[in-house]
């Protein structure tokens, strides 16, 4: 057996994939050929090293992103309720709607203290401000795609504001308080991000809060208020 053929058989030889006859002829060649013996050792070591590679760690915000998506999925399960179940049922759910991420999930992302700071801040005053990002600094984008999100939101919000006056007052108040809660959390997140612009967890929260606003607008549009 020559070197070329031996080299070609070495992986199969090491993995136990060749017949006893072939194995014997590989071994016979190895005995007399230091170069192929060396190759065999290198491949063996490579095979062993491959089983002991270091593990890599993804970014800390990964779990927050995953649980956000899962929760968004789940809240999606009751959204189609709509007309069949009657507005009353839908309305109850609308009112009891929580943000799509909750404290334990954020704790999983290592941000419990921060989350308490954000969500402990839940006063629901000044309903008249709905839909306007009320802080002066609030329009500064903290995410690369945020300008677009805000534009999209503003466009749809303008249409809603135009017909809001004709809504039932209770509905309007509920809608506005929902929107306010999100806006308040959003400005808190922004303050955090102004101090630590690279904070992945807060970036993720801003993204989720935008989604939450869009979702709210979706709900309203679906009901054709």
């Amino acid at each position, binding site marked *: 057996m020559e070197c070329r053929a031996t*080299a070609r058989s070495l992986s199969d030889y090491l993995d136990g994939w060749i017949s006893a006859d072939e194995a014997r002829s590989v071994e016979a060649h190895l005995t007399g050929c*230091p170069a192929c013996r060396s190759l065999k*050792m*290198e491949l063996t070591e490579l095979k062993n090293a491959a*089983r002991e590679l270091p593990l890599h760690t*993804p970014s800390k915000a990964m779990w927050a992103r995953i649980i956000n998506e899962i929760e968004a999925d789940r809240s999606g399960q009751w959204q189609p309720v709509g007309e069949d179940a009657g507005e009353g049922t839908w309305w109850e759910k609308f009112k009891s709607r929580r943000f799509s991420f909750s404290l334990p999930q954020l704790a999983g992302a290592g941000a419990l203290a921060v989350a308490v700071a954000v969500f402990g801040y839940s006063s629901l005053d000044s309903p008249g401000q709905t839909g306007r990002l009320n802080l002066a600094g609030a329009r500064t984008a903290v995410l690369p795609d945020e300008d677009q999100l805000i534009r999209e939101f503003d466009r749809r919000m303008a249409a809603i504001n135009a017909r809001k006056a004709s809504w039932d007052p209770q509905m309007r108040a509920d809608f506005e308080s929902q929107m306010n809660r999100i806006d308040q959390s959003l400005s808190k997140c922004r303050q955090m991000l102004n101090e630590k612009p690279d904070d992945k967890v807060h970036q993720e929260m801003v993204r989720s809060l935008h989604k939450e606003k869009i979702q709210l607008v979706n709900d309203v549009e679906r009901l054709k208020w």
Partner: protein
Amino acid sequence: MTAKAINNAASDHELAKAAAQGDTEAFETLYERHHRRVYSLCLRMVANATEAEDLTQEVFVQLFRKIGSFRGESAFTTWLHRMTVNHVLMHFRKRGVRLEKTTEEGEIGELQDIVQSSGERPRFIDRIALDKAISELPPGYRSVFVLHDVEGFEHEEVADMLGVSVGTSKSQLHKARMRLRDLLNKKI
């Protein structure tokens, strides 16, 4: 015992059953246990950290949706890793990455590679350097090497997942190993 401590003591199978009932804390424990392996597998397959993060996220979201179909016949790890591999391969297909052919020069130099060997001393392979070298392989070689040598799948499974013959899987693996050896030797 706190819920967290109970979860930490539970088996993957028990946690999977709880997660299937909507218990996100049980699911989080599964995530804590497995996310580094899943991420490392994705990272080695695609050789790009951003793509690997996206894929890992998608795998866990999909895992939550499908976890009710885990029956415990195989080990949870095996099941999860297979799901991960399938997801990465789907991603390759969507992006038009061809695995059955290697895009670079077809045959790997064989004879000169042997001659260039330096003595018979066993050489310690730096794991970090090997990890980096794997990322430099063409996708076809890389997939076979990662699945067979790193993840420990058998050739039949690798061939099945990649949609190639067992013979192709074996010859790709050998070429991948030879190429890695070249890459590692160059760096010394």
